[in-house]
């Protein structure tokens, strides 16, 4: 039913918010003015690790225009925040990193608040600094947090089979150490929040969070108030990429200031602050040992990692959830062992970031796929195809690949990039005189594509209202953070109700209105919120068609919705708006307003990290072609050929944008981006020295979609948000090897790092202390 008229699925639909954003009309949090608002600034530590002896705020308080200067002493009721609740928003007696919040000011203007910060005196007594995980793990190292005697914040262990047996069966065994660096999200919209209490003590928060419903609960606990008295409104968000999944100190600090002053308080980061006080991608040292048989069958994999947790625990510590999936299940490996220790240091702390540990794991795994293939003399593509997962597989970790386009991804990317022939041609030029070399490398990825059940529910609620002009308001718990979810959700509703896109408005940014959703993470919104929207739309459709059948006296099975009409077979029966008005304004008035809550059929992992954690899994292969100038170390990415199992393309324009953007983000991770942290200090907190990829560097991109029509996905689609960033660095590493014969085990591939590696002047990553 409903196939009269044209479907919007798979078409190129401009994002609904694009005209506003392109014309500068979008009002981000920076543009919002709360009447009577004060402006807040945070005083951060000037010491990496120190005892706070005293803080003198008297002079700051005397500055005209200052309304409040607070330290931890003013908010004795504050509570620890973050994933492990190891982090007080305002530090009491000790700072553990340079970003640490020591005091905060609310003033009439930002400038006055800045001046007031300069008047606050803090006396520190420096403590020994832990700059590396090795120092933190050394016997006798100072302990950064109580209850963590050896500075280990968290550990993760996973095992399947028996790696000793796997190794005994191997003809080739290799072991390498990889080092993955710090990068940060670089959202174009810097962090910000507006907090406002009403006289009754209820909190209104304008926040850029990706998880409004989870935050509501956290803030309620912190303030000791009923979560029902907290309303979170999300203005359009200038970039998320995972950076807004945790509570960070600036949010409670703004709330404290609002409560203490009784005024709305607006707090916005400077760009420098955004670099210094935002979470990073998790830096990792990873040791990988793998083996295979002569015929190319993988036998085992052992992974140990040390995560530099930084001074506090955020989501970065928990990236092993995803890393172990790639280790155990991207390719078929009978025996696996995985261990991670996240270790406290005085460095910046790591959060969640698009790909969530998968970039790091894939970087190592795909390097070994190349090395093992070469060791047994197999073609790189054939070796991968031999070990690639197939539809129907249930991996030892418990993931069930109901659809799996992996082999198609591999062959499509390889064929479209002419991978096999170019590999051979490039290798043949290793020794010729031209110092500028060409290389091609391939890498693949597995990621959750149907949500990830890590909270009690991985669901999303929808309220759908069809008004008496047949206009639909889709009220969804799922936030828009630039990924295009509004547009896709509207499309899915239109598909069910036979309406044009212009007939749908999406409301998605107010916890007092929208139903619950776990948040924007794990590439889940299209899949989970999409299924939820479809569920609500189908209920509305059933209601409308039942009423139409009763009115027309025809069987409901003969009716459908299309082009804004109720159709009976191929004839227009009722104009939908008119029919709905009749329904609303009759004696037995009926509103067409439905609700739906979609909970995916995924499972929580057990204590051994086993279980079918997602309702669907996404696959991709990317082939990267590079040019390497061996006299400068400059690597130019010329072309990316990507093949992505996306289930089904819903919005072709949107998915192309997501994949292109993800490829460039992955490219930045590999080639240019590097948050330089020396002695626990960020050395390049600006866009001059932190190099994002710019327009002239964009590679040619050739993107193919593998449509596996996932049975559980909305119209067959899978999540794709994180996928395109994941295997870029791995593919580029393999391409550099193909160009030069040099394998580089540490990111980033900035010119000096590459030059050093090519000329034997690099320090190879070393495996330090294990924990």
């Amino acid at each position, binding site marked *: 039913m409903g196939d009269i008229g044209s479907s919007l699925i798979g078409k190129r639909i401009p994002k609904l918010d694009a005209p506003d954003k392109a014309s500068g009309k979008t009002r981000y949090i920076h543009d919002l003015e709360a009447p009577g608002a004060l402006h807040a600034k945070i005083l951060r530590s000037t010491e990496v690790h120190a005892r706070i002896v005293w803080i003198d705020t008297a002079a700051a308080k005397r500055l005209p225009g200052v309304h409040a200067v607070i330290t931890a002493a003013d908010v004795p009721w504050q509570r620890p925040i973050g994933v492990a609740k190891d982090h007080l928003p305002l530090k009491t007696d000790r700072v553990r990193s340079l970003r640490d919040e020591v005091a905060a000011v609310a003033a009439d203007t930002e400038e006055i608040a800045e001046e007031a910060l300069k008047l606050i005196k803090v006396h520190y007594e420096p403590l020994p600094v832990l700059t590396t995980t090795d120092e933190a793990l050394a016997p006798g190292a100072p302990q950064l947090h109580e209850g963590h005697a050896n500075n280990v914040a968290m550990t993760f262990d996973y095992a399947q089979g028996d790696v000793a047996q796997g190794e005994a069966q191997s003809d080739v065994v290799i072991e390498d150490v990889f080092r993955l660096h710090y990068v940060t999200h670089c959202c174009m919209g810097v962090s910000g929040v507006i907090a406002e209490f009403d006289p009754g003590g209820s909190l209104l928060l304008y926040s850029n969070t990706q998880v409004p419903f989870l935050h509501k609960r956290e803030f309620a606990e912190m303030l000791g108030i009923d979560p029902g008295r907290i309303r979170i409104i999300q203005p359009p968000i200038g970039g998320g990429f995972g950076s807004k999944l945790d509570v960070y100190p600036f949010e409670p600090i703004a709330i404290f200031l609002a409560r203490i002053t009784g005024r709305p308080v607006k707090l916005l980061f400077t760009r420098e602050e955004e670099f210094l006080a935002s979470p990073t991608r998790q830096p990792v040292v990873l040791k990988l040992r793998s083996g295979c048989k002569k015929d190319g069958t993988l036998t085992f994999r052992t992974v140990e990692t040390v995560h530099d947790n930084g001074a506090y625990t955020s989501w970065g510590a928990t990236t092993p959830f995803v890393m172990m999936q790639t280790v155990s299940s991207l390719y078929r490996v009978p025996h696996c062992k995985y261990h991670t220790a996240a270790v406290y240091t005085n460095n910046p702390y790591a959060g969640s970031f698009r790909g969530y540990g998968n970039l790091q794991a894939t970087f190592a795994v795909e390097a070994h796929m190349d090395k093992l293939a070469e060791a047994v003399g197999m073609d790189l593509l054939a070796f991968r195809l031999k070990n690639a997962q197939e539809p129907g597989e249930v991996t030892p970790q418990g993931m069930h690949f109901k659809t799996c386009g992996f082999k198609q991804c591999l062959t499509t990317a390889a064929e479209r990039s002419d991978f096999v022939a170019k590999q051979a041609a490039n290798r043949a030029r290793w020794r010729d005189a031209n110092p500028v070399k060409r290389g091609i490398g391939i890498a693949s990825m597995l990621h959750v594509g149907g949500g990830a059940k890590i909270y009690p529910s991985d669901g999303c609620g929808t309220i759908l209202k069809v008004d008496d002009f047949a206009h639909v308001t889709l009220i969804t718990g799922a936030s828009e953070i630039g990924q295009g979810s509004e547009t896709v959700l509207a499309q899915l509703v239109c598909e069910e109700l036979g309406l044009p896109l212009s007939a749908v408005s999406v409301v998605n940014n107010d916890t007092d209105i929208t139903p619950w959703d776990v948040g924007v993470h794990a590439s889940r919104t299209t899949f989970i919120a999409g299924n939820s929207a479809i569920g609500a739309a189908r209920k509305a459709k059933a209601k409308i068609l039942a009423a139409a059948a009763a009115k027309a006296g025809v069987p409901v099975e003969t009716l459908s919705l299309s082009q804004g009409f109720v159709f009976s077979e191929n004839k227009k029966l009722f104009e939908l708006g008119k029919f709905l008005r009749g329904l609303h304004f009759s004696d037995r008035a009926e509103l067409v307003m439905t609700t739906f809550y979609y909970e995916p059929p995924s499972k929580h992992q057990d204590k051994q990290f086993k279980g079918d954690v997602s309702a669907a899994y996404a696959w991709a292969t990317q082939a990267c072609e590079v040019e390497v100038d061996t006299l*400068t170390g400059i690597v130019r990415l010329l072309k990316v050929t990507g093949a992505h199992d996306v289930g089904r393309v819903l919005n072709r324009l949107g998915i192309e944008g997501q994949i292109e953007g993800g490829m460039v983000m992955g490219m930045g991770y590999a080639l240019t981006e590097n948050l330089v942290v020396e002695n626990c200090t960020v050395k390049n907190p600006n866009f*001059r*020295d932190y190099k994002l990829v710019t327009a*002239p560097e964009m590679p040619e991109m050739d993107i193919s979609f593998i449509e596996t029509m996932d049975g559980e996905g909305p119209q067959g689609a899978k999540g794709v948000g994180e996928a395109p960033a994941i295997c870029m660095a791995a593919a580029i590493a393999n391409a550099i090897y193909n160009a030069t014969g040099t394998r580089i085990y540490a990111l980033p591939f900035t010119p000096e790092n590459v030059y050093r590696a090519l000329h034997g002047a690099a320090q190879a990553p070393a495996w330090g202390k294990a924990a």
Partner: protein
Amino acid sequence: MHAIERYVRPGSLEEAAEILRAGNVTVLAGGTDLMPQTHAGRVKFQSVLMNVRRVPELRGIEEHGGVVRIGALVTITELRESALVRERLNVLWQACDHFASDQIRNAATLGGNVCNASPAGDTLVPLLALEARTVLASKPNGSLETRRIPLDKFFSGPGRTLKKPSELLAAIEVPLPPQGFVGEFYKHGTRPGLDISAISIAVGAQLKGKVLNEVRIAFGAVAPTPIRAPRAEAVLEGREADAATLEAAAQAALGEIHPISDVRASDWYRRELVRNMLKRVISHVGQL
């Protein structure tokens, strides 16, 4: 706090020099260095902010008697669009083509780039290779005076020059290079544009057949100031750019540079780049 107490906008060079003589003046031209530097607290505003953009004597690109005079207010965009610069001072033109972004090029002035005296300043390196000199104006005794300082003597350290606070840079003078003079500018950054040089090289020479004459080599970002490399020049003078000569020139150049390690590059990498890229740039010039 260092607050600006007075904003002045002279309409002539005389007037500007008069204001400078009174002291405590910050000179504003394009503002592309001054604004970020004051914002970051590295430079403090003096009590008088003098905007020199309406001083007509500081404008224009003209050639008289074999010398090209470039007014201090000439923007990078104007240089880039000048046929005279493109044809006769091509190595400078190349540097302007690699300079920052369109927005910055539209605002940034040649005089500002010279007075900022960054060791990595993009136009300074080709100007050194072109043997340019600065023209400084002042009004010490009630009448306007000018003095000229060759550019290779002008820089005294990172961000420092021999220009006195009472002097205004009025123009850069560049003697026209001999006919047949060719050059190349190379800038090493991590991306094609919008980057600060990790090293930069300007090479110019007059070619007679394959023989290099009048060889001039300058480097940026490998010493406290942009520098000429006379010993490397001497190695090349009157020779063809064969492999042995190139290597000898590179070795000579390595003895003339004093690079440091910073967030953009290590000293070791800068030396490697100088060796590899000087050879590459000279061999390009040798084939022009």
